């Protein structure tokens, strides 16, 4: 009996030894792999800009558009292009002896934790002098924290959560407007409609997807519409990517608002459009954010997409006023075989501004770049976005000239209807009823 027991424990011990050995071998392999990865990314004599985007998952297509924008911008800086835009007619960054720009892409998978790791990698392992990205506000939050910690500028041109600039970070700069701006823009637009169309608009319902973006946007809309004297009848959250939106639409119908303000993504946007049509829901009008302006929306719904109001950060109308916009649109089409979209347009200024800051600072020293960024004052005519320029608020680092344009889908094309100076079409108000089209 005793013998047997020793035998067992002996075996157990051998097992244990084997386990240990195996374990160390495994961890060692992991270590080697990790080292190999960090070594393979050796130093080159170029200025590296890190970009974090959700390249896997639901948003991969969107992120690909952004990625192309970054590459296009880098290409414009690095090579000679006859474009009326800074850094196009020079090769490289003039203020830094013509140094080349290289974009290093990191995939966040839409996960804040991964985005954080990517920021670490891009800054410390890759030696990026600044970061751009990261699309989702949640990832931008964690990634910009890393940039803040290492004292590296983070230029954000595609996250709209108002909470981002409220943090008062030193190294975080937002070029694009926030969802607070959008709410303000919407209110001004509605005021204008009331005046121009003699419409009586009193009540609204806000519909939003249950994501950080949806919820915080709804907060802002509720705040600004209430401030402006409108009555918010209901704020309805719904699960993003729902299989069916009947209950949401029926609830809206029950509340009977004058206008419906929607915050949704393209997938739900398509579903909503169809459900509105099926249930023949006709308020005075629909104001949407994102859902109707993603590139896939119009092809998916066809004529049913007509008359929806949507936001945009890109107004093709600008092409008539600024030659460079048209040139870039053509350049992009030639290079990638598709039309430029707002995700691309948003990504370009982030890279150009980073380059501009380095150029003015004549260095990639973070402190000097920071100073340059704070002094930024780019006029509207140097931009391809409809913003009124780029200048950062000294405290929040929000671009005070950032704004959205409001578009309406007319004849299955986006037409800019607000702000008035960019408007290219007369908008249709009220909403033409589904069965009278």
């Amino acid at each position, binding site marked *: 009996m005793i013998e047997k027991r020793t035998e067992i424990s002996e075996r157990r011990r051998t097992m244990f030894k084997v386990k240990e050995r195996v374990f160390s071998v495994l961890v060692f392999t992991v270590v080697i792999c990790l080292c190999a990865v960090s070594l393979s990314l050796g130093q080159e004599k170029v200025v590296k800009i890190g970009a974090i985007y959700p390249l*896997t*998952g*639901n*948003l*991969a*297509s969107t992120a*690909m558009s952004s990625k192309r924008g970054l590459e296009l911008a880098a290409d414009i800086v690095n090579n000679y292009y006859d474009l009326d835009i800074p850094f196009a007619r020079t090769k490289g960054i003039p203020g830094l002896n013509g140094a080349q720009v290289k974009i290093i892409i990191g995939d966040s998978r839409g996960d804040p934790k991964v985005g954080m790791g990517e920021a670490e990698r891009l800054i410390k392992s890759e030696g990026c002098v600044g970061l751009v990205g990261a699309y989702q506000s949640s990832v931008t939050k964690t990634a910009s924290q890393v940039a803040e910690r290492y004292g590296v500028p983070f230029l954000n041109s595609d996250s709209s959560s108002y909470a981002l600039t409220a943090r008062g970070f030193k190294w975080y700069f937002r070029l694009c407007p926030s969802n607070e701006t959008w709410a303000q823009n919407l209110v001004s637009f509605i005021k204008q409609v009331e005046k121009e169309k003699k419409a009586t608009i009193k009540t609204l319902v806000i519909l939003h997807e*249950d994501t950080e973006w949806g919820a915080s946007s709804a907060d802002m809309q509720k705040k600004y519409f209430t401030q402006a004297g409108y009555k918010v009848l209901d704020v*309805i*959250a*719904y*699960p993003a*990517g*729902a*299989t*069916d*939106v*009947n*209950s*949401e639409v*029926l*609830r809206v*119908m*029950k509340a009977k608002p004058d206008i419906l303000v929607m915050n949704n993504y*393209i*997938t739900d946007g*398509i*579903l909503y459009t*169809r*459900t509105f*049509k*099926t*249930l*023949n829901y006709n308020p005075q009008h629909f104001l949407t954010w994102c859902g109707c302006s*993603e590139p*896939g929306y119009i*092809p*998916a*719904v*066809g004529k049913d997409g007509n008359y929806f109001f949507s936001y945009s950060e890109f107004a093709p109308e600008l092409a008539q006023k600024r030659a460079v916009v048209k040139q870039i649109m053509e350049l992009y089409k030639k290079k990638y075989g598709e039309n430029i979209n707002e995700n691309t347009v948003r990504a370009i200024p982030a890279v150009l501004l980073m380059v501009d800051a380095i150029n003015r600072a004549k260095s990639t020293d973070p402190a000097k770049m920071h100073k340059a960024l704070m002094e930024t004052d780019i006029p509207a005519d140097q931009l391809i976005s409809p913003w009124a320029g780029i200048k950062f608020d000294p405290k929040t680092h929000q671009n005070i000239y950032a704004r959205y344009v409001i578009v309406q889908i007319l004849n299955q094309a986006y037409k800019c209807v607000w702000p008035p100076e960019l408007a290219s079409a007369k908008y249709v108000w009220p909403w033409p009823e589904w069965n009278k089209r």
Partner: protein
Amino acid sequence: MEQLGKLLIQMIISGVMMGFVFSLIAMGLTIIWGVMNIINFAHGEFLMIGMFFSFFFFKYVSIDPLFSLPMVAVLLFIIGFITYHLLIKKVLQGPVLAQLVVTFGLSIFLVNLAVFLWSADYRMIENPIASGKISLAGIAVSIPELVASIGSMIIGAAVYWFIKRTKTGMAIQAISMDKDAAAIMGINTDRLNAVSFAVGVMCVGVAGALLSNFYYVFPEVGSFFGVIAFATVALGGFGSIEGAMIAGVIVGLAEIVGGFLLAPAYKYAIVFAIYLAVVLIKPTGLKGW
């Protein structure tokens, strides 16, 4: 009051229609579970493949989803058959956990294979034959949804008939009740496992093809339907075809009516709550054993 009554009828109709589609998805899953005792985590991905096939038939060969349905069904059947032989068979004798891992792996693989081959774009079939709506006394029914629910009902009934009335179906039932006893009846369990897996995959693929008439197609579309399908199958009772059918309708109704009455944000929470409530009273779901 009349308004509310109308809304309720509207919701019940929409709920039941959606429910039939859920039923078909759940039926596929429950057959696979019943026969092989494995949860197929890649179930939603087969839905995605069905949708993509349907979309490609429309886009490149100009065959309407309604007419490509039989081809999609056959293709999915073949894919299911191959998947069984390449993967599922290999882990069937192994630990339960290996079976779960392998279907997780398959799910990750299929989603990203779709991204790799077809990109993560959202696609939609434009103007399929099944489009438009029928309105009657203020109640509106969308035709693609109606077609999907009728189609699901027909396919569901066919599969039900196959399982309950044919010799092969009876053998499949026998395997799901007692694998060894079925084997000594002379049933080739391996072959019928493959058939059941293929039928299960076919069911969900057909549901995908029907959904593609009104739902957008993208690589991750399956994950959402997949989770709902697990809850539906478990609610109906694992392995029970009748259970899956009933539970599908309950889920469809709960989602729409519950979502309306409580708050749309909670509509899937209601589905999960119903599941928990049911299994607390009857631990094997509505119709499980």
